[in-house]
Every structure is written in C-alpha cells, then in structure tokens.
C-alpha cells in the first residue's frame, strides 16, 4: 500500500492539470473489474468546485526538465517521490472497487530521461490492464521527446492520451519550457491520430485510444491574447482531431522573473471555455468569436458579445428559426433549442409556453420573438447594461439543476 506521504506529494504535483473527464470510452468489462461510462461520471467534488472523476497522480515528480512555471522542475527545492507501478495499480484497484474513482489519470515528470519516464508509464498501464484485469478508464499523459514506439504502446492500453501544449506559442515555450519544443508535443499527437485512424480503418481487435486525445494550455503565464489561443484551439480540433482542449488559469506556485506574479483571472478561463463550447457545439468559428489579437470580454459571455456585434440577425422567431440560428441566441442552450424544435411541432409557441418549458428567457428575450411578439429591449446601450448585470449574478450562482448535469458530465466547462 502506498504511503500517505507519497500519495500526497504525487497528487499535489499533478493537481494543476485540469483534465479530469472520464467520458468518451465504452470499454467493456472483460472478466476483471471496471468498464467505461461513455457520459463520464463525477465521484466527488473538492472545495475548489472541481470534480473528482479520475485518480490524478504522477508516477514520479523527480524531473530533469526545467519548465519555469512548474513546481517539480529540476532546480526546485521540493520533496521528491516516485511510486512503483505496483503501488499505483493496487491504489487504483482499491479506490475503484469502493467507487471513489472512475479510473486513472497517470502522468509523470521526466524522471531520468524521457524514454525512461515513458517506459514506466507504459509498464504501469500495461500491468493494470493485463495483470490486474482493470477495464476502467485510463488517461495517460505523453512524455515529450520519448520514443514514438512507447507512445504507440501506451495507446493500446489507454482510453485517452494527452500531450500538453501548455504555452500557446513557440516563443513562450522556448522561454518558459526550454527543453520542450513545439515538435516534441505536436508530432506525437499527429502520430497517434494517424495510428488511431489506421486502427479503426482496419477494424482491428481491442482498443486504441477510444476516447481520443486532449491537450491543455496554461492561460496567463505568457502574453498570448485569447484570439490567438482560440485559433490554435480551432486548428487542434480541425487538423489534429483532438477531443478537448483544456485551459488552466495560471496559478503562481513558483517565483521567477519571467513569470507574472499574479494568477490569471478565473473569469478569463471561464470565458475561454464558453468560447470553446461555441466552437465545438454551436457552429461558431474562432474568427467570429474574437479578432486575432483581441481578448474575450470579461463582462459579457462570448455568445452575447457576438449577438450584440451582429444585430442584423435578430430577433429570430422561435416558431420558424432553424436549429443553427436558435443555437446562436444568447441564453438558449442545446437543450432548450431541442425542446423548442420538439414543442413547436404541436403548437405555436408564445412566451408563456417558453416559460412553461423552462426555457430561460432573461437574456434570450432580447433576441427573439415568440408568435410575432417581442418582449426585449432594442436600445443597444440599455441592452448591454441588462446583459452585463444579469451575467454577474448568474456566474455567482450558476446552479440550475439540469445545467449542472451537463456541467458535471464535462467537468469544468462554460456551458452557455
């Protein structure tokens, strides 16, 4: 059994990685314990409001690299620990059996060398799958500069892998993570994408990253504006086939003259998630959401901001508007849009009907008509004020039961 002290060290160095989602895999139980739960599942929530789904842990925090922002970097004076693959395996099995976790998110510092660190990760997940008979969710972080064959081997056991870009530009990477390079992160992503496609095309037995790949960027440690971050995100979705891009507000755990002394505003991260959501589910492009060198508005959510910049599209009539347009109405989420599509087949919908259907109209009423009637305000200045004021309160509470369900499914995101 791993010691409490080791567990603490290896968890505390892993906890700033925000990805925790356990969704996207339907791996079957094949006689041992565990299976995938396609929708993902939160097992607990910590006082910082984050979901615990996976056991998020490093195999080792003993690093030879010197990323400036990282508390495990080689020159940091911190307690070091390395777990054995067996310690991790029994921890996963016993936590899983008690339903504490949905699976494992295993990462490691670059201990000894990139190949050595990656070998240890592969050994652990292979052991877990083959010796311990574990079929629950496994997310493995890839080590940059490791042998491509090791990445491929890991992918045969993992449900998801991630190479974290961390810094959204090559210049920042050079400055803050000098031993990493754009290629050391993007090439393995491409390799795994190619291999996953081949695996599926050949309909081979077994699994090869059924939940795909993700990545993470730290926001606020380097000067890139939101526009640049979102364009990078968009290309990662389109060209690299990533399932998710996570954003992590920079938290200053390290003092360095190259790093800002204060953390990024949580609101900025929240806005990026909202914008990301618009890219993935609402048919928006990065170019529509924010200019190249611009930042997202902190006061207004990105959909509201877009709608205010594009008044020519509004108001839309709920009884006629196509789905794509309903989805562009501020305050109307995917679920409300579906409800509207379904209900309007039976009756002409007025505002009272929308209310009964629990479509939240506080923002939406300024952008739509129901049965020809408009209940919003058309004065742009007043409208902006109303939308900004509503926002502040909502962000404070944000706890409608069913939005919560969706939020719970996707860990920390900005559902609109």
């Amino acid at each position, binding site marked *: 059994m791993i010691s409490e002290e080791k567990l603490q060290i290896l968890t505390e160095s892993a906890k700033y990685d925000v990805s925790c989602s356990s969704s996207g895999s339907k791996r079957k139980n094949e006689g041992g314990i565990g299976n995938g739960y396609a929708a993902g599942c939160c*097992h607990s929530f*910590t006082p910082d409001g984050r979901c615990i789904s996976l056991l998020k842990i490093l195999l080792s925090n003993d690093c030879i690299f010197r990323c400036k922002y990282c508390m495990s970097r080689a020159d940091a004076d911190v307690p070091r620990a390395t777990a054995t693959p067996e310690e991790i395996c029994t921890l996963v099995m016993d*936590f899983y059996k008690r339903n504490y976790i949905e699976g494992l998110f295993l990462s490691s510092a670059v201990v000894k060398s990139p190949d050595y660190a990656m070998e240890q990760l592969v050994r652990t997940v292979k052991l877990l799958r083959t010796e311990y008979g574990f079929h629950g969710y496994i997310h493995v972080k890839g080590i940059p500069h490791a042998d491509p064959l090791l990445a491929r081997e890991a992918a045969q056991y993992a449900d998801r892998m991630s190479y974290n870009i961390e810094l959204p530009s090559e210049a920042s990477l050079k400055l803050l993570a000098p031993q990493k390079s754009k290629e050391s992160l993007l090439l393995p992503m491409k390799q795994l994408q190619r291999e996953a496609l081949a695996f599926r095309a050949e309909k081979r037995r077994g699994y090869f990253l059924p939940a795909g790949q993700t990545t993470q960027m730290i926001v606020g440690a380097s000067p890139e504006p939101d526009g640049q971050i979102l364009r990078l995100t968009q290309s990662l979705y389109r060209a690299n086939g990533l399932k998710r891009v996570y954003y992590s507000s920079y938290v200053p755990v390290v003092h360095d003259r190259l790093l800002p002394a204060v953390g990024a505003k949580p609101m900025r991260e929240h806005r990026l998630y909202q914008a990301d959501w618009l890219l993935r589910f609402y048919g928006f492009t990065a170019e529509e959401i924010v200019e190249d060198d611009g930042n997202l508005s902190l006061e207004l959510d990105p959909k509201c901001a877009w709608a205010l910049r594009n008044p020519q599209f509004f108001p839309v009539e709920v009884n006629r508007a196509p789905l794509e347009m309903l989805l562009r109405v501020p305050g109307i989420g995917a679920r409300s849009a579906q409800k509207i599509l379904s209900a309007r087949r039976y009756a002409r919908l007025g505002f009272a009907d929308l209310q009964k259907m629990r479509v939240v109209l506080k923002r939406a009423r300024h952008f739509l008509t129901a049965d020809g009637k408009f209940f919003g305000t058309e004065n742009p200045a007043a409208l902006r004020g109303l939308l900004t004021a509503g926002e502040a309160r909502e962000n404070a509470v944000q706890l409608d039961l069913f939005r919560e369900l969706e939020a719970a499914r996707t860990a920390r995101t900005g559902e609109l």
Partner: protein
Amino acid sequence: MIYFYDGTKQSFLTALLAAYSDGEAVLSSRSAQLGLGEQSVFVHADPVRAEKAEKRLLRYDPKCMEDLDLLLRSGADDRDKVALDYFRLIAARKCPVRAMLAEDAVAAAEDCIRRVQFEVHRFHGFVRFLESASGALYAPIAPDNDICDLLVPHFRARLPRFPFVIHDVKRKRAAVYDGEHTFLAPLDRAEVALSADEGAWQALWKKYYKSVNIPSRERLKQMRGYMPVRYWKFMPEKFGDLC
C-alpha cells in the same frame, strides 16, 4: 374527493380509473390531513381493473409505463398530482404526449422524471462501498428518490465478481447482488464487519481528496451545488466536514 393509494403501480392505475372522471380529484399516497368537509376514499389495488387500464394506456403510448415507474419513484411532494395529470392527459389525447412540452402536465412530469434520472446518474458517482471482511461490498445511501435497485445494473456490469448490497437506509430496503442474481429486500439495519484494510484505504482516499484540492481557488458554493450536503453522510471524504 381525495383518493388515497399505496404508491404502487397497480393501486395507482386503479385509482386513476376511479378518479378519471372526477375533475376535483386529488390523488395521494401519503397520509395527509383532511380539510373540513373533504371526502376521501382509500383505493385498494384491483389487479383486473389495473391491467385493463395499463393495456389501454399502452395502446396510446407504448412507453408510458416506464414513465409511470419513474414517477412513482419520485420523492417530490407533488408527484401524485404530477402523475395523475400526466396520465389523464395521455388518456384524453389517446397518444404519446411526451413531446408536448408546452402542456403544464407534460413539463411537470418531465421535470419530475429527469430529477429521478439525474439522481441515479449522481449516485453512480456518489455511492461509497465499504469492503466487508468477507470481501462483499456494502454501500448505505439515503437518496431523495426510491432508486436503489436502479443503481444495480451499473455496478453489476463493472464489478461482476463482487457481491454487493446497496442499502437505502431511509426507505429501509436494499438492492442486493449476490454474485449471480439481483433482488430487492427489506432491510432495517445492517451490521457489517469491515475488512482489515478498509480503514487504511479510507484514510488514503481522504488524503487524496485533501491533496488534489487547490485551496487558493475555494468555491464552496459551487461544490455544494454539485454535491449537496445531504449526500455527504456516507462519503468518507466529507466525514470531517459534517458536524
């Protein structure tokens, strides 16, 4: 007229037939205070009439009995009224009404059903098993809705080799998987001898819970929204936070 019934499907269907043409009907499965001058009747389940009603309703909407099952599991105060209104509407329209979300009765029923389903989803995560000395797993729960047996397929699929008991301590019943079969049984109190390592694993879990948190970003309100305090009682990671 108030129609009391016992909360089961058969007695609901019998009561539905009795109350159908009574516009003032109130359905109740709980003991309620009668107002002055109010009349009441206790409806005994009548298997023959219930089956007739079920067949008719299934002709209108082949999936409506699944809705009824979930509605009758709801712990909401108004669930008897919600169920009555919903099934009245199906009977009146003679077709599935599920998608008619602008109807009050449908919106209310949908809401009620979603809450039950949402709680099932939540408990897939919030159930905490204790390992007993024999290796069987035991999880006490106190959910808002009557869902313990609905949780079984999920855990059975992922822990096929472990017998387990999910004990609804509020309703004093347990869903049991004995390694082969699943069944529901009345269970008042359970005495469980824990395995030798159970305490140590719980301690590790608490340590993990504490270590993975980022204290500088405290958002307690959000945490409590996602994981309401009423569920904490059986979650080891929250034991210290309940006074």
